[in-house]
């Protein structure tokens, strides 16, 4: 497969965004889990990410020039019942190939649903299942939006370590969230006509989507383990490292692409902001460090009696 700037940027963007939309936040017992940026967590919530902004350079490959891409995303999630929610997301992309014309346009819309089927407050544990649908043909081909859809059923999990023994109390603020999913393209291959009239056929593999986050909650440390005297804004910060990966499984494709994203989440009463570095895990995933930032609103806290409550109670 030729790696054009648009395709390269799309791969990087997929690594950043896949496979979820509208990352959730929530509680399991006394544990507050923030909304993560690159990997979806298991919570069903009413929330809005506005905006999520990412910036990434991508390198040239042979005759193909490098370039840079800036993405601007909006995601919203809504609870239908206490444990079942839906979400939708849109991304506007700006791709600037080195020496080429800038391409602008919307990527394919993403929609999905999630059902939380297990929660153990004592163990700060939660598991849910969901399906993400990247809706083919709804975006601009100029920015690499695919003409076919990809459906990704996935399992999501979260676990806080507040149940560790007191001898390990300073590890209690640790938590992990993660997901495993199976990406199913609705078309096995895509045929395109190049600028010079040449016909290219690209095979679309099934993919194993996986990722997780490791987070250390300073609010948890302060409120439940030991007050170490942190003041604002540090007492609401959650250092996090996210791993967002995708492994091609068949149709002539193989290997894993993805990014490791170390960053900081600041979670307030009804809003959170976050910033992460986006570090490609290998050459196929890119060779420069990008940035991912997000402003996120907890609609259940902002509008507890209207927008922020389940439609069916």
């Amino acid at each position: 497969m030729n790696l054009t700037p648009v395709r390269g940027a799309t791969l990087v963007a997929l690594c950043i965004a896949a496979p979820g939309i509208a990352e959730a936040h929530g509680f399991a017992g006394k544990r507050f889990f923030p909304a993560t940026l690159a990997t979806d967590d298991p919570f069903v919530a009413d929330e809005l990410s506005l905006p999520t902004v990412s910036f990434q350079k991508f390198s040239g490959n042979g005759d193909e020039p490098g370039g840079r891409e800036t993405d601007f995303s909006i995601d919203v999630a809504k609870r239908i019942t206490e444990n079942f929610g839906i979400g939708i997301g849109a991304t506007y992309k700006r791709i600037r190939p080195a020496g080429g014309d800038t391409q602008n346009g919307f990527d394919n819309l993403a929609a999905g649903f999630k059902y939380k089927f297990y929660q153990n407050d004592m163990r700060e544990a939660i598991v849910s299942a969901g399906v993400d649908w990247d809706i083919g043909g709804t975006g601009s081909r100029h920015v690499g939006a695919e003409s076919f859809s990809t459906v990704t059923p996935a399992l999501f999990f979260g676990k806080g370590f507040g149940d560790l023994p007191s001898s390990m109390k300073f590890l209690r603020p640790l938590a992990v969230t993660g997901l495993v999913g199976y990406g199913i393209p609705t078309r096995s291959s895509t045929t395109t006509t190049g600028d010079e009239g040449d016909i290219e056929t690209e095979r679309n593999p099934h993919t194993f989507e996986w990722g997780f986050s490791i987070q250390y909650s300073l609010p948890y440390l302060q409120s439940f383990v030991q007050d170490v005297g942190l003041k604002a804004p540090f007492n609401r910060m959650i250092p996090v490292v996210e791993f967002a990966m995708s492994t091609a499984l068949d149709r002539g494709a193989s290997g894993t692409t993805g990014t490791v994203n170390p960053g900081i989440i600041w979670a307030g009463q009804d809003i959170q902001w976050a910033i992460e570095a986006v570090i490609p895990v290998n050459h196929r995933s890119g060779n420069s460090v990008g940035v991912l930032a997000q402003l996120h609103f907890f609609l259940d806290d902002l509008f507890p009696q209207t927008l922020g409550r389940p439609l069916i109670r």
Partner: protein
Amino acid sequence: MIPLLRRVVVLSIVAALCLAAAPAAAHAFLDHALPAVGSTVHEAPRSVRLWFTEQIEPAFSRVSVLDASGKAIDAGDSHVDPSDASILAASVPVLAPGKYRVKWRVVSVDSHVTEGDFTFDIKP
């Protein structure tokens, strides 16, 4: 397309500012406590006081103090401070040296429930 991008950015910023300015009453988190979370004190406290990030509902908010065996030893007068609805307090008798656990469960004024616990030690 650039004007469209600018429009999207501007509209998003305006929407974000409107949301950020919206009045809200969210989950009540524990801000700090006396005795402090995880602390060791050398003088037995006569009460425990918890400061929350939101005002809480007196009728649905409780704090209790347990000794090392898990027995409640507070005076049973858990109450929200009448002068500051973000403070929850309970009296305790004169406590012997040892480890004590403070358990709380509160409902913020917008009906969100939060709960938690922490320990403190008394050493002579």
